[in-house]
């Protein structure tokens, strides 16, 4: 059994260097350690200047996403034992601008997410005295899968379309739009479809499918995008064949 594991970590210190470099660290191997544990060990014991994001350590907060051996992963769920004998390459999420070391800028995603209006929109709100909007189990089941998204952005990092065309609205934003479209309490599916049918919307997707493979929550954004394409195409045919029916 290995006693130590080598980590090849990308460093980028904008005050010192103009492009990222690689720094090698050797950490003790423990069966129950994930890549994030190894990074924490480095930060605590070897090099306090290493920067990276993390919070919950249990696959809920979505902030510790990094490239591990070239694949976007939540480092809190990437066990060192799966990468033996190493070395394990840890890089910032690809296709995002790097601020420092393993920290990327996520502003672009945040703006895109807001653009698809991921909240419940009603044409007319019920008065509070009428009580909650009730849902059956079936109605919940329709969108539940898409509501599991934790905004970790691994899907953006896996999407070559986003890499090549930064204006693409991207997998998670579309999956979350679909999450609200399928919610029985929401009434803005048409509005979101129009936003998503714009040039940088869902038709940019060529169905590489990698977003769904890397998703740690099995949200299947690729599925959401194809389902929306189908809805969009049906809507377009309806508007051509039955222009009065789509008003």
């Amino acid at each position, binding site marked *: 059994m290995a006693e130590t594991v080598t980590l090849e970590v990308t460093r980028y210190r904008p005050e010192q260097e103009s492009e990222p470099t690689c720094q090698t660290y050797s950490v003790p191997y423990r069966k129950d350690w994930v890549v994030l544990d190894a990074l924490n060990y480095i930060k605590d014991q070897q090099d306090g200047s290493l920067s990276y994001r993390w919070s919950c350590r249990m696959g809920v907060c979505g902030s510790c996403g990094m490239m591990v051996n070239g694949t976007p992963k939540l480092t809190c769920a990437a066990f060192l034992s799966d990468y033996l004998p190493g070395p394990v390459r840890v890089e910032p999420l690809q296709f995002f601008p790097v601020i420092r070391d393993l920290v990327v800028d996520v502003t672009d995603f945040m703006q895109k997410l807001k653009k698809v209006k991921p909240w419940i929109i009603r044409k007319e709100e019920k008065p509070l005295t009428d009580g909650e909007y009730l849902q059956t189990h079936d109605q919940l089941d329709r969108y539940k899968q898409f509501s599991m998204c934790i905004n970790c952005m691994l899907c953006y990092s896996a999407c070559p379309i986003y890499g090549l065309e930064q204006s693409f609205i991207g997998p998670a934003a579309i999956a979350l739009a679909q999450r609200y479209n399928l919610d029985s309490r929401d009434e803005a599916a048409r509005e979101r479809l129009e936003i998503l049918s714009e040039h940088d919307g869902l038709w940019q997707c060529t169905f590489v499918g990698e977003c769904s493979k890397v998703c740690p929550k099995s949200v299947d954004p690729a*599925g959401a995008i194809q389902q929306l394409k189908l809805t969009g195409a049906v809507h377009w045919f309806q508007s051509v064949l039955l222009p009065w029916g789509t008003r």
Partner: protein
Amino acid sequence: MSSETQYTPYHPKWYRRRVSVWWWLQNRSYAYFVLRELTSVFVGLCALLLLWHLRALVQGPETHAHFLAQMRRPIFVALNGVGLLFILFHTITWFNLAPKAMVVRLGGKRVPDWTIAGLNYVAWLLLSVAVAAVLLRG
């Protein structure tokens, strides 16, 4: 290390890596995707061959015989062989992806993916048998 790099507090100097033109060789899924996209070229070529065949049929037996003689040339045999492989790849990969786009709900439950893909394969098989029956009878 570069002495020219300036760092302004609160205004991060981002580093953005350019995507290589070889991005599709980065992992197997990307290569598989590009291959699937490329199959459309062969689907197009085989469609053109079919149109050429139809044109030869319309123009009479002599032209048709000439067309068939052309098709026996190694280059066309090879093109058809490679075309067939790519069309099979195209069909199978798209059938397998069909359940992603088609969500069918029956009795409040989502019909499983394998059923949707399976129905596509069954339809393919039935159509192929029908075409074979017409051709063999003739």
